[in-house]
C-alpha cells in the first residue's frame, strides 16, 4: 500500500502499531517468566512482575490516548480506521493478560509447596502453549498477517482441552493431599487464568482478521461448529 500524502499521518499510524508491539512483548515476557518460575518453584521474579504491571497499564492508557487523537484529528477511513479501532481492542486484551499474569505471580509468591511432578508437567505444557499462542497472535497483529490465525484458533482448542485435563489432575490431588488444599486451590486459579489468556490471544487474532479484511468475529461461526 502506498504512503499517505500527508507523511505525518503514516508516522502516527506506525507509532501506534509499534506501541502495541512493545506492549505485547512486555506482556509475553512477563507471562513466560512467571510461568517458568512457578513450575520451578522460584519466587525471584514475582515482585518485579507485580510491580511492572503498573507500567503495562500505563502503556494501555497511552495507546488509547494516541488512538483517540488519531480518530479526532485524522478522521481515518477504511483500513486506517480498522487499524486504530483494533489497536484499542488489542491494548485492552493485552492489559487483561497483564493482570492475569500478575495474579499468577502473586500466587507463585504465596505458594507454600513445590508442585508434584505430574502437575508440574501439565502446568509447564499448558503455560508453554498459552505463551506460544499469545506470542503468535501478537506477531500476527504486528505484521498484519492473517495466515496464522487458524493455527491460533486450533491451538486454543487444544489449550481448552489441557485446561480440563489439568483441572481434573489438581482436583484428584486435592482429594489425595488435603494438607495443601490452599495451594492446590490457587493452582486451580492458575489454570483458569491460563485458559483466559488463551481466549484473549484468540481475541487478538480476531482483531487481526478484522484489521486485514474487515471481517468481524470469524471465530464465532467456527465455534458454533465445534464440539467443545
Amino acid at each position, binding site marked *: *500500500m*502506498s*504512503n*499517505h*500524502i*500527508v507523511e505525518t*499521518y503514516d508516522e502516527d499510524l506506525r507509532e501506534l502499531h509499534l506501541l502495541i508491539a512493545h506492549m505485547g512483548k512486555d506482556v509475553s515476557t512477563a507471562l513466560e517468566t512467571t510461568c517458568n518460575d512457578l513450575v520451578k518453584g522460584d519466587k525471584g521474579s514475582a515482585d518485579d512482575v507485580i510491580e511492572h504491571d503498573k507500567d503495562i497499564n500505563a502503556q494501555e492508557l497511552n495507546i488509547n490516548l494516541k488512538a483517540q487523537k488519531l480518530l479526532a484529528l485524522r*478522521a*481515518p*477511513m*477504511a*483500513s*486506517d*480506521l*480498522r487499524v486504530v479501532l483494533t489497536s484499542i481492542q488489542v491494548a485492552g486484551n493485552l492489559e487483561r493478560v497483564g493482570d492475569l499474569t500478575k495474579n499468577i505471580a502473586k500466587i507463585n509468591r504465596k505458594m507454600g509447596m513445590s508442585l508434584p511432578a505430574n502437575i508440574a508437567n501439565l502446568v509447564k505444557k499448558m503455560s508453554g502453549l498459552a505463551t506460544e499462542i499469545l506470542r503468535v497472535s501478537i506477531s500476527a497483529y504486528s505484521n498484519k498477517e492473517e495466515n496464522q490465525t487458524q493455527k491460533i484458533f486450533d491451538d486454543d482448542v487444544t489449550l481448552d482441552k489441557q485446561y480440563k485435563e489439568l483441572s481434573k489432575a489438581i482436583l484428584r490431588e486435592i482429594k489425595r493431599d488435603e494438607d495443601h488444599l490452599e495451594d492446590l486451590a490457587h493452582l486451580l486459579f492458575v489454570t483458569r487464568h491460563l485458559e483466559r489468556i488463551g481466549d484473549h490471544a484468540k481475541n487478538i487474532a480476531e482483531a487481526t482478521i478484522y484489521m486485514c*479484511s*474487515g471481517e468481524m468475529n470469524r471465530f464465532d461461526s467456527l465455534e458454533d461448529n465445534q464440539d467443545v
Partner: protein
Amino acid sequence: MLELGEVIVNCADVSVFYGDTRAINNISIDIEKQSITAFIGPSGCGKSTFLRTINRMNDTIDSCRIEGRVKVDGEDIYAPSVDVVPLRAKVGMVFQKPNPFPKSIYENVAYGPKIHGLSNNKNHLDEIVEKALTRAGLWAEVKDRLHDSGTGLSGGQQQRLCIARTIAVEPQIILMDEPCSALDPIATSKIEALMSELSAEYTIIIVTHSMQQAARVSKRTAFFHLGDLIEYDSTDTIFTNPKEQKTEDYITGRFG
C-alpha cells in the same frame, strides 16, 4: 452491501464527449428513489459532468455529446421527442455557488412556478412560496421581508433560498453540485440537516469534494476516477471496507 430499493434513475453505458475528448467512460449506475446518493472523486474525474447528464444541463455546452441511455422514472430523457423544459422541472439543480436572482426573495421562489404555469392566482402562488420556504428551513427567517432582495441574504441563507426555489416546482429529483463548498461549517451543517429531511420526499444526488460530507449524509456512494465509475456501494461499506484498491487509496488520502 448495495441493495437498492425502487430505482428512479437508471443509466446504462453512458459516455460523454467534449468534442473528441471522452470525459465519461461507459458508466452504468442505478439511483435509489428517495434516498441520498453521493458522487465522490478527485478533481476532473467527471462526477459533475455525469451529474449534469441527468438533467441535460450539458445540452447548454455546444461541443458536448452523449452516448448510452439515461432513464428518469422509466423514461429515456435523451429520446428525440423529449422536451427539456419539463424534465428540468422534474429534476432540479442546486449549484456550488449560491446564485439567487437579483430579485426579491418572493420573486426568486415564484420564478419556477410562474414559468411552468403551476399557479393561476396570487393566493395559490403565495402558498407555494411559503411552503417551499418552510421546507427549505428559511421561512421563519424571511417571512417578514419577502420583498427584500435575495442577494442581501447571507451565504447559507442564499443557498437555502436556491433550494427553496428548486423545490417550489415540485421536482422528484434534486441534483446538488458541491452545494456547501462556498459555505462556513455552521451553514454547511444546516444544509446537511435539510438534506436529511428532504430525502424523505425527494431523491437527492450530491457531488461533493468532502468525503466526510459524503460519509455523513449519503446512503450510497459512488467513487469516480478519470471518467470511470470505480466503485458504487453503501456508504458504510465504502468508508469502512471498500473493495477496490483505488477507492481505498482515495478515501484514506493515499492519492488524491
